[in-house]
């Protein structure tokens, strides 16, 4: 053993201990909650893609509007209490929302997609043009006021983001809000004009309905400036509305263009099944290598164990979120990872048949096999690179991206383990008695170059 081999051996030992420490923490599972992150398909949840409608937005401010929408969705999702949500921009005008483990899907969708703006209206006179809203009380149009010489519609855009829900001294639930400067000026004008008339409140093109199922349209009794309150909502509805208002308004309309939801029950069975597939696959590959290549096969199996623990440690540190396809990619990569070893061993066998010593055969095997290992694995990188692009382009498909990522990491690490771990272990064997028995390398004396 040369000095270089000793150093390598030391580095490999340290790496494997580190990897095992990362992968197998005490009191934590390998996969799942506190282990390697699992994708939506394995832990259940929702994958939603929204398309922002930028047609009403001034050109050049689209990105700002989409980012604004993302910030608002983040606040709303946090209010929903989902653990580890992910909200990301996809391309120019799309937003991907991943909600792991969510069960109340419809509620979540309603909460996320809402533009959440309260609009205020006044009743229209007979024959006064087209109504924006209609309910039991009659036809409504948006109520307006003139501020700085400009006529504006009154909406919750002028609320300060500090609304809260409380009960008044009669025990009724009230949602309290404050107007900003413009809102105050407008509300003063409007309450003056609508004295003793109803003020309609609308949410998402529908009249805001109270607990009793009737539209909430309070009669204006006095001139109000800086603040107001909404009565008649149930406590639950008022709280949700308050949260929405405080999270701010989504600046652009959002359309749901892709929706995928999976129940958590379905995913959990796949986790144990795929772990099983991985273990069986690993054992089969190791058995094959040991039976076919004997001693080098044992070395390759050792390298494969090293490979598995290092890759899992990398998944956990980056961290890579494992979807079912990602695990599939990893399991397949176990089969592919021995490729570099196979290439090297086949070369070694040829060299041994030519009558070289083990030391010479190992070195020749590695140096001759290297160009093939390098050039052939690059094709896998090209394929996985294209796959990653495909997965990330339109649909943010976690399975496709996950597969591409795990296979790329797997192939890269397998190249490294073959040229470091396998090589060092084989060189360590040189000089021991085993090295003299060529039968352990499945090369029998007398069987020359055919």
């Amino acid at each position, binding site marked *: 053993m040369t000095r270089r081999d000793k150093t390598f051996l030391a580095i490999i030992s340290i790496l494997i201990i580190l990897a095992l420490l990362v992968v197998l923490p005490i009191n934590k599972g390998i996969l799942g909650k506190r282990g390697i992150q699992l994708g939506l398909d394995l832990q259940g949840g929702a994958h939603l893609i929204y398309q922002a409608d930028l047609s009403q937005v001034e050109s050049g401010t689209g990105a700002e509007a989409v980012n604004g929408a993302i910030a608002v969705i983040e606040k709303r999702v946090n209010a929903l209490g989902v653990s580890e949500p992910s909200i990301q921009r996809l391309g120019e005008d799309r937003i991907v929302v991943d909600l792991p483990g969510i069960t109340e899907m419809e509620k979540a969708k309603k909460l996320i997609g809402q533009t959440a703006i309260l609009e205020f209206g006044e009743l229209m006179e007979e024959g006064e043009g087209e109504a924006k809203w209609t309910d039991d009380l009659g036809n409504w149009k948006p109520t307006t006021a003139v501020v700085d010489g400009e006529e504006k519609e009154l909406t919750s855009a002028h609320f300060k983001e500090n609304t809260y829900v409380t009960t008044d001294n009669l025990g009724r639930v009230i949602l309290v809000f404050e107007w900003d400067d413009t809102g105050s000026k407008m509300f003063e004008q409007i309450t003056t004009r609508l004295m003793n008339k109803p003020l309609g409140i609308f949410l998402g093109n529908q009249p805001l309905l109270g607990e009793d199922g009737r539209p909430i349209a309070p009669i204006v009794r006095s001139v109000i400036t800086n603040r107001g309150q909404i009565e008649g909502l149930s406590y639950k509805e008022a709280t949700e509305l308050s949260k929405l208002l405080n999270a701010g308004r989504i600046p652009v309309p959002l359309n749901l263009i892709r*929706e995928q939801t999976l129940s958590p029950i379905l995913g959990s069975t796949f986790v144990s099944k795929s772990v099983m597939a991985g273990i069986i696959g690993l054992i089969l590959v190791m058995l094959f290598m040991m039976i076919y290549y004997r001693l080098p096969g044992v070395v390759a199996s050792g390298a494969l164990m090293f490979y598995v623990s290092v890759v899992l440690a990398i998944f956990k540190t980056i961290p890579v979120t494992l979807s079912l396809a990602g695990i599939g990619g990893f399991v397949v990569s176990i089969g592919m990872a021995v490729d570099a070893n196979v290439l090297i061993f086949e070369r070694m066998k040829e060299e041994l048949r030519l009558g070289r010593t083990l030391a010479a055969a190992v070195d020749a095997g590695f140096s001759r096999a290297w160009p093939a290992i390098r050039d052939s694995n690059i094709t896998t990188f090209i394929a996985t690179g294209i796959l990653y692009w495909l997965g990330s382009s339109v649909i943010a498909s976690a399975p496709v991206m996950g597969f591409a990522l795990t296979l790329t990491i797997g192939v890269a690490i397998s190249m490294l383990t073959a040229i470091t771990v396998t090589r060092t272990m084989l060189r360590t064997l040189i000089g021991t008695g085993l090295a003299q028995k060529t039968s352990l390398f499945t090369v029998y004396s007398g069987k020359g170059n055919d």
Partner: protein
Amino acid sequence: MINIVGKRLWFLLVLWVVILFGVIPLAIFGLKPGVEFTSGSVLTVKFEQTVTESDLKQEVIGTGYPEAIIQQTGGGTFLIRTKELTGEEKTALESALTTRFGALTETEFDSVSPLVAMETTRNTVIAIGIACVGMALYIALAFRKMPNPFRCGTCAVIGLVHDILIPIGVFSILGRTLGWQINLMFITGILAVVGYSINNNVVVFDRIRENLRKGISRDFATVVNHSVVETLSRCFNTSLTTILTVLALLLFVGASIQNFAVVLLIGIIAGTFSSTCIAPNLLIIWEKGEWGGLFRRRPLPAKSQ
């Protein structure tokens, strides 16, 4: 030594048979694209009571989805494929089904808008196109020191087309008989096969390059035969270990990666054959200018030992 290159014109015939095997079912049956490529919704529900497929179909059609496709996936679980459903429409459909068949659990819901489906299809075609061209260019670059690098690239890509046509042909038949759909996992499998197939070719070509440099024979066919035979056990062994892991996935996990695993399984077997028997032989035919031999009554006597 096994003579693989001697029967090269026969292998070329196999190539044609395979291409026809892939193309004919594809032309007759086509592929059955999933919602990702056609848009629409797939609702997976599990009923607690026994429900028959025909009763369910009747109910779904009665609720206003005459185009719905119902598929039983085992137990009381059904896939209901319809046009793209909104949240309200889905709730309405589920409550109609609950009224008729009793309690149900929604295990999966997948909905794709036409815009997304169109873009996904477009990008998939682009991805496969770039992959094929990229691989040909890469091989030409990696083997730039060979006499005709672009011939290597082209032969490898012809082998690649062979490798992906077989799974496509099989899926076309499976789509017709068992209703298997093409989804993104299928495409993932195809692209993985693309990488795998070229990977094998590189190993074989690398050996040809090395043996040419060593000058083991003046006859190109002999050099190629030597190289293929020398890399044979490597190609089989790596394919075998990969097949072992793919089989483990297929048998233990199945479900949503079934498509992917089946494509990979077929593609790996095809790839092992094409990289040992098709691509190298094509290269000889091209280098020796034997294309004309294809049209003669008797193939040229192949020279090899």
